[in-house]
């Protein structure tokens, strides 16, 4: 189908490289039995036969970068922990997947929770942690059930608990359900939440590596990062670096959603392009034209069809003005109103702003109002400058990345689609029919509700 579209000069590999997703079609894939039948826990065996420092060295050598959005090198993060002082150190898995468009960790944990548990065991061993936590968002009941069950099964099989696999290594794992707050995906807010507080970010430094959970040295890693560790340890750093690009090694889950023929999870080497992925996913729905897309969730500046060939690795996407983020490719065709899209994302940020810092709390609140009136046809030309000025006062001035993220869709869309904003202002309303963008047929209601959004 698309072999020909693999760019020349890149390492030759198949367009899709299922590793994490490789067991997802197995019968009762979520069980320990199914996971072991497919080679699961070989990584833990290999790790326990080594010194912890060597496991860290392998992960460093693999070049694995955080799959939660920031792309910080995972092994390096582990290396930031201070030398053991006899007190506890913690691993906390960030399973609070909530970034709009991001939908990879939840299906991973639904289909293959043992991959995460194995990664937790290996990572804990590597960093000297004896009590690890998995903080999963509370709004995914069945995923929480599966995680609880996976931990239960792993304990029963001696893969967790006292003296793991006869190694003398002890590990306790607690699966913790959140209660609905996007901000808890920010690692220090997550730690506060795990400590039973409101989930608000902490001032850094100190970083969690130095003073994290209960002010002890803590590693916070994303689900996909941790789930990638077993394969790296079992199959080697060279194997991992044989995929991807020089500085964005390995594979990752690319999540296609929106106006594509076959939305879903596509596990591919980093550096693939949207053109290749769209080809695999059957192209745009109904052959319509691509209008805009997010490379890594709503917090990453939007792209257009001009970026179809941008390699989806950390460096190339950054160079093109956005961020690889979580590889959450939300794809919108020509029927979509960009003002409506951005207005709704802004409602989201306003709703989820934790309120701790003024630029984000007030900025997102006012941007929401301004975007609502533009979308409703009551905006003025000055509103666009007002939006950009507000963004300017949030970006780099907010306590955490939520505020920065809130500005991404606004500034990037005004830059790319200023005329469309102006059409709403001069035309006194939205020129698009929302029904045309929906995936089912219906007749649009008479007067679209301008202020329905953000009523949470």
């Amino acid at each position: 189908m698309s072999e020909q579209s693999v760019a020349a000069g890149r390492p030759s590999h198949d367009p899709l490289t299922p590793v994490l997703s490789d067991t997802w079609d197995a019968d009762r894939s979520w069980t320990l039995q199914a996971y072991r039948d497919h080679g699961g826990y070989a990584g833990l065996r290999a790790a326990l036969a080594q010194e912890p420092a060597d496991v860290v060295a392998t992960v460093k050598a693999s070049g694995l970068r955080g799959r939660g959005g920031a792309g910080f090198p995972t092994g390096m993060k582990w290396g930031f922990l201070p030398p053991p002082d006899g007190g506890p150190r913690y691993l906390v898995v960030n399973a609070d997947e909530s970034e709009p468009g991001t939908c990879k960790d939840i299906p991973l944990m639904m289909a293959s929770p043992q991959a995460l548990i194995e990664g937790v065991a290996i990572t804990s061993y590597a960093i000297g942690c004896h009590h690890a936590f998995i903080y999963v968002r509370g709004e995914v009941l069945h995923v929480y059930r599966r995680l609880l069950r996976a931990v239960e099964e792993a304990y029963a099989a001696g893969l967790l608990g006292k003296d793991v696999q006869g190694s003398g290594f002890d590990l306790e794992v607690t699966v913790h359900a959140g209660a609905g707050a996007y901000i808890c995906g920010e690692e220090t807010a997550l730690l506060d939440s795990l400590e039973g507080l409101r989930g608000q970010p902490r001032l850094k430094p100190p970083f969690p590596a130095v003073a994290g959970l209960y002010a002890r040295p803590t590693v916070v890693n994303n689900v996909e990062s941790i789930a990638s560790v077993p394969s790296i340890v079992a199959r080697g750093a060279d194997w991992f670096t044989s995929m991807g690009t020089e500085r964005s090694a390995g594979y990752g889950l690319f999540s296609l959603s929106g106006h594509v023929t076959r939305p879903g999870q596509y596990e591919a080497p980093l550096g693939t392009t949207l053109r290749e992925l769209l080809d695999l996913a059957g192209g745009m729905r109904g052959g319509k034209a691509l209008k805009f897309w997010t490379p890594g969730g709503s917090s990453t500046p939007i792209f257009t069809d001009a970026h179809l060939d941008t390699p989806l690795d950390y460096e190339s996407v950054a160079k093109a003005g956005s961020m690889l983020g979580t590889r959450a490719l939300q794809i919108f065709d020509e029927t979509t109103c960009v003002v409506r899209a951005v207005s709704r994302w802004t409602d989201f940020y306003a709703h989820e702003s934790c309120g701790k810092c003024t630029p984000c709390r007030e900025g997102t609140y006012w941007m929401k109002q301004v975007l609502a009136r533009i979308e409703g046809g009551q905006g003025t030309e000055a509103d666009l400058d007002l939006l950009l000025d507000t963004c300017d006062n949030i970006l780099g001035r907010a306590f955490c990345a939520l505020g920065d993220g809130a500005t991404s869709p606004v500034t990037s869309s005004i830059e790319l689609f200023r005329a469309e904003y102006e059409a709403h202002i001069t035309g006194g309303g939205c020129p698009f029919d929302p029904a045309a963008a929906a995936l089912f047929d219906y007749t649009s209601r008479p007067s679209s509700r301008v202020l329905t959004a953000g009523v949470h």
Partner: protein
Amino acid sequence: MTTETTTDASGGPGRPRSRSGYDAEKVARLAADAALIVARYPQPRSALLPMLHLVQSEDGYVSRDGIRFCAEQLDLTAAEVSAVATFYTQYKRHPNGTYTVGVCTNTLCAIMGGDEIFDELSEHLGVGHDETTDDGAVTLERVECNAACDYAPVMMVNWEFFDNQTPGSATDVVDRLRAGEQVAPTRGAASVCSFKQMSRVLAGFTDGRADEGVGAGEPTLAGLRLARENGWTAPGGPTDTAEGAQAPDGGPSTGTTGPADAQGEPEAGEEQSSAEREPTTDADVDPGGKPGTPEAKPDASKGTDA
């Protein structure tokens, strides 16, 4: 921990429950559950979020009594507990319906049809956001992105996935829920449980239903199916064959996992090796990064899977 507090507060037989307003039987039962929750954590206060879920499993919302109960268990003030309870959207401040029906109206689902589904449900049920039908069956909500964008438009019923919805399918679901029928989510348990039952699971008490339902829906498997059809794999073949080729001692089958290898491999000092390379971005020297610089976003930033 607050064993003493708990014991004191529970009071003797003749003494009314001082603060929570729960009767003695309920206090004793919930205190036993609360102790199990507290035991999961190095520090008791970490038990607060699950304990609030526990309270909802009793009362159907976070009641005043529930707040006082949590405060007593954890030796906190009611104000401290309230401050936490009001921060999180899953904690309800007034009695919830038996089923929370949440329609995703974040951008992607909204545009794919979520807005119309919400409007249709709202009209059909005669309630708005965060309102409950008169029969107490359904609380309707707009919800934010629930990490199922490849199944858009998505509806959640008591936080189970109802994928690829239409206005018709959504109204059918709520009609059946109101009629007391068993309704099966697309991906989840064999049937949707009640809000109270769900809350008890979220407090960490299993209901034995983890093995029900599918492992993955079609979109989750879209890439894998294509890879299978075309024989595409990661280098070295699928995971199971690669592991099968391992050394008997369980050691690494390939690569640089061994200590000597890790040191000796030229790759360790090469550019892609984070272990050795010179810092090239702010993020390399500053784990949290500087705000506003795309490469330096904190790991758990909102670009994150946060």
